[in-house]
């Protein structure tokens, strides 16, 4: 049967690839390292008591309360359904190569004498520059997209699916509305096509990426230093100084916090400097006790897949009927004292 062939030949291999490929954030390699870091952190906060540390780690990271909660089951439904949906719509999305080639020839047309103007530069220098440029552009674009998802009411209607998670596990990263996935896909196309076309245009040939296990070296460092713990109940902070530059797991948990003081804070993915510049940075504290999810007013009533998929559209429809010109732009309580 074609559907079984598709499940065996495409769906399952792609799904497994997400957990085996080091280019994916939830690969087993990174998950294992995150678990080890969580245990080390737990032992550390237990003042060196290994037993107590393991108990904390078990409670915060490995407990049924985290992995089999109502919210976690919602994560899994979205992961499995989105995976199928995105596989099916992927051929309809703009090809990265088409976009890259078009941009490259656009540069040639508008700066004809600039083609390969830096072709004599040392390949190592070019590779390092490209790797850093790509990382910065990618991280900034994630910040900007995330910022827009919170600040544009129509986009928040979709992004709030992600924020409806009440327990956080590394798989919450996949708690995404499919429309957001299309936005993220477009973001990746813009970033990768721009970076590659600019570098090939300026340097006249393909450029190497400084990589580890085939992954951008900087991104690899981000992933092995516990990026998966950002969606967890392990509040590892980096200290007040470092948190101006890097988003710690605790800072991202602040981003998910129900505390109105934490609304629309810490949009960054790896770097905190964008939030610092935009004034949305919030550093972590060791005495924080956080609850996650949405306020009662915004709360999604159900963890059913259809509800996840269609409630944003219904919200937009209702809002369009009641407030067609979006006069009330305070879709969420943006200020500390609003609630």
């Amino acid at each position, binding site marked *: 049967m074609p559907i079984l062939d598709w499940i065996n030949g495409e769906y399952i291999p792609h799904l497994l690839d997400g957990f085996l490929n080091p280019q*994916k954030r939830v690969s087993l390699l990174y998950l294992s390292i995150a678990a080890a870091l969580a245990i080390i952190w737990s032992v550390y906060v237990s003042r060196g008591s290994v037993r107590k540390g393991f108990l904390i780690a078990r409670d915060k990271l490995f407990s049924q309360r985290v992995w089999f909660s109502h919210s976690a089951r919602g994560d899994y439904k979205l992961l499995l359904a989105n995976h199928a949906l995105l596989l099916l719509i992927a051929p309809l999305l703009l090809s990265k*190569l088409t976009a890259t080639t078009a941009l490259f020839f656009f540069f040639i047309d508008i700066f004809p004498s600039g083609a390969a103007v830096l072709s004599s530069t040392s390949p190592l220098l070019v590779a390092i520059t490209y790797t850093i440029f790509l990382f910065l552009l990618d991280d900034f674009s994630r910040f900007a997209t995330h910022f827009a998802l919170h600040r544009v009411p129509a986009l928040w209607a979709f992004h709030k699916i992600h924020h409806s998670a009440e327990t956080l596990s590394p798989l919450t990263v996949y708690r*995404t509305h499919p429309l957001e996935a299309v936005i993220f896909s477009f973001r990746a196309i813009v970033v990768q096509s721009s970076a*590659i076309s600019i570098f090939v245009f300026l340097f006249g040939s393909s450029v190497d990426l400084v990589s580890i296990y085939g992954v951008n070296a900087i991104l690899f460092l981000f992933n092995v230093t516990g990026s998966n713990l950002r969606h967890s109940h392990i509040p590892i902070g980096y200290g007040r100084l470092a948190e101006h530059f890097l988003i710690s797991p605790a800072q991202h948990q602040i981003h998910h916090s129900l505390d109105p003081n934490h609304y629309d804070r810490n949009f960054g993915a790896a770097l905190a400097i964008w939030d610092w510049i935009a004034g949305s940075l919030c550093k972590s504290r060791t005495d924080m006790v956080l609850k996650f999810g949405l306020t009662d007013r915004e709360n999604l009533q159900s963890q059913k897949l259809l509800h996840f998929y269609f409630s944003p559209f219904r919200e937009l429809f209702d809002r369009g009927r009641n407030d067609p010109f979006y006069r009330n732009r305070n879709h969420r309580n943006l200020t500390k004292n609003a609630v």
Partner: protein
Amino acid sequence: MNKRLIASAFIIVAPAIATPASAGDAVYGKFPVTLKSWMGNETNSVAYTGQIARQVLHDSLKKLAGKGNGKPNAALQAEMMLYFEGKGKNRKILAPTSKGPFVIKQKTVGEISNPNLAGKTYKGTVSGMPNNMTGPELIKFWIGKAASANKGVDMANGYNYPQLISKFILGAVFYHQAVDNYLDEKMTAGNKPNNKPYKKGKHYTGKEHSWDEAFGYFGFPAHGLMLSPSQLYDIAKRKPTAVSIADANSDGKIDLYNEMVFGPAYYAAGSDKSKKTAYAKTIGKAFLDGRKLIASADGNALNSSQLGQIAQYARVIEENWEKTLAEATFKYAGSCFKDLQAIKANPSDAKVLAKYVKHWGELKGFSLAMQTGRKNLGDTATRLNRLIGFGPVMPNSSQVIDIDSGGNYVKDQASGINEYMGHMLKVQKLIVDKYGIKARKNDQLAGMSDMLKKLGSGSAAEND
């Protein structure tokens, strides 16, 4: 027991028995004389000696074009003209000649046939070069220049005449004659019918010989379908290891008529070595299948269904042949791009500059060759000609923009090497967009695809 033995023996021997039969089927060798009015003793209606002689004339002319010593040389020019538009059975074969164990059977062109190239050269105007010259006029112009250039190369203006002459002839004679003449109007009902001799006194029919002539222009050995792209390539290169492969009749000599690989087939095989294309095999098979179809008419005029089938084979040949020229144009645009990169890194390196001039000659020759087919390439030709220009952009940014009435080049300052490198990439993109070629040697845009692969697909569903 005996039955089992016999059965086993049959299983072992059967393929051996079958091989010669199937090999024979795959050879463009002997087809019966079907002309009903013929009363002679000939048993083979296949003949394409004139075309192979022209392949030899082309190779020899290319060799001669590189013989100049940098001073005007009327004798050399006259000798080149003899190979281009002259006649004479005693014209020596200058290329391909014997090379070590690769012994060529013929020594003179006349041992094969006695034609010329000029009479079969594309008569339309060549819009990719100044002054609206026709094909023969352009080649004569280049012959004049080659005779006074050092080893056929004008380093001041960036012209490598052996390459320009050779690559243009691959199109303007061979491709043009095959696809725009023999496989086109001569395959129509009223032209060269199959129930009449090709010419009075000939033992083959109009359609048989027209088809054979087109085959001869492809420069493919009669047993070429039994050879791999690498083997075809090695034969053209006259490698010692290719002797046994080429020498189909095992007489110790390579017969240029039916055992050699010439330019068009060589470039097809060159692409096919990438294993991404099968131009040589596809073209060779279409020729063979078409010839079988004509033979099956048994000397009767082809009916409309047979003519339709023949037209289909002809289109397969044309389409694939055109792609081999497009692949070569693509390849040399990539070579020029790389050469220009090297020139920028080391502007004083004369060897790099010579390579660039050589590759540009090949690029220009092939791009002009593409424009000599049956179809008018229209906008594609205009864009190709504008991007490549009348001459290469030289390291000092000068470029030939015209030829004056005295035949002298007129130069101007172009906008620079960087922009011209961009033109080379645009040539590659244009070729891919228009022809969908697959081998894509020296693909300067492939790097972007590789870079994207390195970044991986990521996961669009990952949320921050």
